């Protein structure tokens, strides 16, 4: 057996650039196959004579490989490394093979060669465009429950993996002077030109190999070298330069504002055993001063009956398979064209020893030179003829040829057919950049028209024909000085046809595919027009033409031409749909990149977090923070643990981690003045060493945040905010300071994380802490409730706050964060024999509710004023300005009938209300009842021996003693309206 048969019977010895000795084993639907290192899956399958690769989306028609690049609409497969690393809809023309690659075909059952769903093809007259929209309209509910799931199961493309992806993905922000997209002759020249000036350059290409069309153009000489060799030399030269970053296997998928371009680099998809550290893909977020688009052109198919049969392929693709991979796509290959470029393919194939029985050219008078060249190799050329139909089912077996003006039919046996409908400049990225395309009527193509960004298109994507002209244009785009590169030969992008070919016109009902991936035929486009779709945007949505994952790279222009013909309007008048990102599908992995697992979102932990863990604490998420929720002891459930913690705080003392509270240091001679403007309370007269509870409003008069503020010096305040409110309060304060009150001499510094905060609350709080504190007289007289002192605790500096969110005598010990854990442990060891009990956020919530202290965001909801919340006392009566002062005067804010905060006691003390439950005055009224309020906080209070609740109730303060009702699914709960304080109403314990 020769080496060539090892890697497939269609490998042509001596052809292509792969190394015959480097074989690679892979499987396709379980069949073990051999390819060569460097093969794409498509080239390896073709080398093994496999054309049938998948089934189509709607009709389940057998489909093969249309192209050799990222525009591929048909050959979509499923690649599976393992259960979690599984990717559907991989283009076989892009995926490179590696040892052990496992490939499955898609969209077929039970097998690729026998697919039950193909019955759709037989019944296709009943499945025209728009069929789904029209048929599955009624009954309405059935769309979601019956039709959609069934249709999705039957159609769809591939299957999503069931497990989370274990691959790594990464991200890189990059900046450059010049980003060159495409490393063909144009892109390479532009990059070389720019790099020679010292500019920083990034050049990317979606292929593994540079060169673009040079990979298959056989007669090109650039700078004295054969085209591909020149490309390899050029890329090596670029790689060696410090100011150039060469990214192969990298697709520029999105072109956003201000030259921000998204690239995805495929790093390990082609490797057999990628290292575990290696990301699968890397997202590049590139900001370029200038972008050069050298994205080339995409060949179109001919639109004729059964043009989707496996073995029917774009002419240029056959050249890539032959000249790059050494693969013959068939042994008897027909050619169907409407332009010159397919002749070069025919000649390449013929020279490689492949039988080319006929070139069918729709043109009456093709360029004599190309016809002569073909004929000189004994290839029959039929001008003014068309292929009316392709024969064969799972592989093309024949073509039916007729003169374009009608006449006798001739059938030619083939095992492959290559076609060229001409070249569509790839203006996708240009269009994404918000550039406006212009219609080139002479050559029937859209070209870059008006640019919206600092960007230039060069070469085929700019409609520049001729290699030398392209290189000259590219060299200029790069801004280089010196002599331009000289080239001969090269492709010709001119000519071809758009729309349906002869034999697939409006008078026919044949299946001539425009959009292979979405199974849209020329007939479907005409139907859409007949149904009243007169804009291409409507035609597109009705037929789904161009809406598949390939975004209509091969189909858009054909669809547009057919619609324009049916509408009898010129093409530009029908319009071209705007291209949107991404150019080719992008994995969620690449978009998410690092933001997975631990890096999905920051998890914030307090300095004492580790201690809570050692005590078996359950944690609660509060924003990004983890807070100790409760500390269950052996055998305790949450309820028991929380009850124990609540009782301990009132009877002995509790220790609580309050480090997450927001803290802002307000410094400067105008500090008090500034706080006067930001809070409802008066601050000027607050003595040094004293604390005050402050309320912050928005300009509309509603409560925004609250917290205790301490005056450390005449010109220095320690402000606290709610845990969740810290960033927005800082932003809010900075906003007013910078833009409304910039004349004030005040500065704000966030100190949230400078301080660990250890709250010790309860009758024994002072007894526990005092021995550890130095430099502070903690006696009740010297340091009363609501005061702050600076001194040391356990030998480290502290800001000791005497304050309480429990109603007990309490202290909040602030120490620099790194000392938090040690001080906490010292306090705990000292207090443990006295009954000091750690308590979590749940007990904290209950203890404060027992005292009627509100939690902003729980008992307020952005529509609650201080008056509503029973906090009128916290408003400075003589103040003439503060944020919210005018808002509070609004008519609706002072009117009767506002919801006000009250306490609720259930008549049955064991019933605990549900937070959020609605309250009514009369439970016997018909539904929908008039709701007069809702429960904001509700708990079992072990200290009160009953349930307690806070609620916002219309005119609540006038309803004390009233009985109200809370209707629930299993009965109505009777409640009594009370004051908001349930425990120690006189507040005597604070001063103990």
């Amino acid at each position: 057996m020769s080496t060539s048969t090892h890697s497939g019977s269609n490998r042509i010895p001596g052809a292509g650039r792969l190394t015959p000795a480097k074989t690679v084993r892979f499987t396709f639907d379980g069949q073990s196959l051999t390819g060569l290192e460097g093969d794409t899956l498509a080239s390896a399958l073709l080398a093994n004579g496999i054309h049938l690769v998948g089934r189509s989306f709607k009709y389940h028609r057998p489909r093969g490989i249309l192209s050799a690049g990222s525009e591929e609409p048909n050959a979509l497969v499923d690649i599976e490394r393992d259960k979690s690393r599984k990717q559907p809809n991989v283009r076989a023309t892009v995926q490179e093979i590696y040892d052990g690659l496992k490939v499955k075909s898609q969209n077929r059952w039970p097998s690729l060669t026998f697919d039950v769903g193909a019955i759709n093809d037989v019944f296709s007259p009943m499945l025209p465009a728009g069929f789904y929209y029209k048929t599955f309209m009624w009954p309405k509910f059935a769309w979601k429950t019956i039709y959609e799931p069934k249709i999705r199961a039957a159609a769809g493309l591939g299957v999503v993996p069931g497990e989370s992806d274990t691959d790594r993905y990464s991200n890189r922000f990059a900046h450059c002077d010049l980003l060159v997209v495409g490393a063909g002759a144009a892109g390479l020249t532009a990059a070389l030109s720019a790099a020679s000036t010292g500019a920083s350059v990034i050049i990317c290409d979606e292929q593994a190999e540079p060169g673009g069309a040079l990979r298959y153009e056989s007669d090109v000489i650039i700078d004295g070298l054969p085209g591909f060799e020149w490309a390899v030399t050029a890329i090596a030269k670029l790689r060696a330069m410090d100011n150039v970053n060469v990214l192969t296997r990298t697709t520029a998928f999105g072109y956003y504002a201000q030259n921000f371009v998204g690239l995805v680099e495929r790093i390990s998809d082609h490797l057999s055993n990628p290292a575990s550290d290696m990301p699968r893909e890397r997202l590049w977020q590139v900001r370029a001063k200038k972008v050069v688009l050298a994205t080339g052109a995409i060949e179109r198919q001919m639109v004729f009956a059964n043009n989707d049969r496996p073995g029917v392929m774009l002419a240029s693709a056959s050249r890539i398979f032959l000249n790059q991979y050494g693969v013959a796509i068939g042994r008897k290959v027909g050619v169907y064209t409407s332009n010159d470029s397919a002749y070069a393919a025919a000649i390449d194939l013929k020279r490689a020893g492949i039988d080319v029985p006929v070139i069918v050219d729709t043109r009456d008078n093709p360029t004599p030179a190309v016809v002569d060249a073909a004929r000189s190799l004994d290839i029959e050329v039929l001008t003014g003829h068309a292929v009316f139909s392709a024969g064969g089912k799972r592989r093309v077996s024949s073509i039916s040829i007729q003169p374009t003006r009608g006449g006798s039919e001739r059938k030619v046996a083939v095992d492959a057919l290559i076609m060229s409908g001409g070249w569509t400049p790839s203006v996708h990225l240009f269009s994404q950049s918000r550039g406006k395309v212009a219609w080139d009527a002479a050559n029937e193509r859209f070209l870059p028209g008006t640019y919206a960004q600092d960007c230039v298109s060069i070469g085929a994507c700019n409609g520049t024909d001729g290699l030398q002209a392209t290189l000259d244009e590219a060299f200029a785009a790069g801004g280089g000085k010196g002599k331009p590169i000289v080239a001969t030969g090269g492709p010709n992008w001119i000519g071809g046809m758009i729309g349906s070919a002869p034999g697939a016109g409006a008078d026919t009902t044949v299946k001539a595919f425009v959009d292979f991936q979405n199974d849209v035929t020329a007939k479907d486009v005409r139907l859409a027009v007949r149904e009243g779709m007169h804009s291409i945007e409507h035609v597109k949505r009705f037929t789904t033409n161009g809406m598949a994952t390939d975004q209509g790279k091969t189909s858009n222009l054909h669809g547009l031409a057919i619609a324009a013909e049916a509408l009898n309007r010129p093409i530009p008048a029908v319009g071209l749909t705007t291209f949107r990102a991404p150019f080719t599908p992008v994995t969620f992995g690449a978009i998410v990149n690092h933001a997975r697992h631990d890096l999905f979102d920051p998890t914030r932990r307090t300095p004492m977090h580790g201690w809570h863990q050692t005590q078996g604490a359950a944690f609660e998420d509060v924003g990004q923070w983890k807070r100790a929720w409760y500390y269950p002891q052996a055998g305790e459930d949450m309820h028991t643990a929380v009850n124990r913690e609540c009782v301990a705080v009132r009877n002995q003392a509790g220790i609580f981690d309050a480090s997450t509270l927001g803290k802002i240091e307000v410094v400067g001679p105008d500090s008090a003045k500034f706080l006067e403007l930001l809070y409802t309370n008066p601050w000027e007269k607050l003595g040094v060493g004293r604390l005050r509870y402050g309320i912050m409003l928005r300009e509309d008069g509603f409560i925004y945040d609250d917290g205790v503020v301490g005056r450390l010096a005449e010109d220095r305040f320690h402000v606290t905010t709610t845990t969740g409110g810290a960033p927005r309060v800082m932003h809010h304060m900075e906003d007013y300071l910078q833009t409304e009150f910039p004349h004030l001499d005040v500065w704000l510094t966030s100190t949230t994380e400078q301080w660990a905060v250890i709250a010790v609350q309860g009758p024994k709080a002072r007894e526990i802490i005092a021995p550890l504190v130095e430099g502070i007289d903690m006696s009740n007289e010297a340091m009363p409730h609501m005061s702050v002192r600076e001194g040391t605790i356990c030998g480290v500096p502290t800001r000791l706050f005497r304050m309480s969110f429990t109603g007990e005598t309490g202290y909040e010990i602030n120490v620099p964060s790194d000392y938090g854990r040690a001080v906490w442990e010292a306090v705990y060891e000292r207090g443990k024999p006295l009954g000091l009990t750690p308590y979590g956020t749940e007990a904290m919530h209950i203890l404060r509710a027992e005292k009627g202290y509100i939690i902003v965001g729980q008992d307020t909801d952005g529509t609650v004023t201080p008056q509503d919340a029973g906090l009128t006392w916290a408003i400075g009566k003589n103040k003439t300005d503060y944020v919210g002062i005018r808002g509070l005067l609004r008519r609706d804010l002072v009117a009767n009938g506002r919801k006000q905060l009250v306490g609720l006691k259930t008549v049955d003390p064991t019933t605990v209300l549900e937070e959020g439950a609605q309250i009514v005055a009369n439970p016997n009224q018909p539904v929908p009842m008039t709701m007069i309020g809702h429960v904001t906080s509700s708990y079992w209070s072990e200290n009160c021996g009953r349930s307690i609740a806070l609620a916002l109730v219309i005119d609540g303060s006038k309803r004390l003693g009233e009985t109200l009702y809370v209707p629930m699914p299993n009965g109505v709960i009777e409640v009594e309206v009370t004051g908001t304080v349930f425990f120690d109403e006189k507040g005597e314990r604070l001063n103990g």
Partner: protein
Amino acid sequence: MVEIVQATRRHPLQAGQLDVASVSVTLADNATRISLRARDNAVSALSKALGITLPMKPKTSASNGGRAVLWLGPDEWLIIDNADSAVVADLAKAKVLNSAVDISHRNVGIIVAGKGADAVVNGGCPQDLSLKAFPVGAASRTVLGKIEIVLWRTGEDVFRVECWRSFSNYAYAFLQESARDVAI
């Protein structure tokens, strides 16, 4: 009488190993950090007290021995000094209007050093870190992934990343992850 046990410091981060040879991600030593705020007319007195001319140009820093001052905003500087620094006392000597707030424990410093350190930071930081745009000595508040950082280039291949302590786990893990990627 209860014996007072001197509290000891505990850094929020446990340094882990990074199996990458070309670039390192390590914890910076404990440092004294001050957030200094002042108007233009106080700059010269403060500079004198500090022994460093406060940088006035955006994205720059100035240093003198172990003490460095980073420009963060038009009236804002971050002072980083050795842990036993006398910077607070030095600032107190300047009898001009200013706000000096100790944030030594608020921040954590992480050092990214070695070949490709810029790319490691660019794994999550959107700024242009070329030497032209972000030369040695450049400093700026910016973002890294989903958090805010202060970035300071102390050498061609050395960056100091400062973040709030509860974000330091995230920053450290992010930079390690990015370093693995850069080393590929």
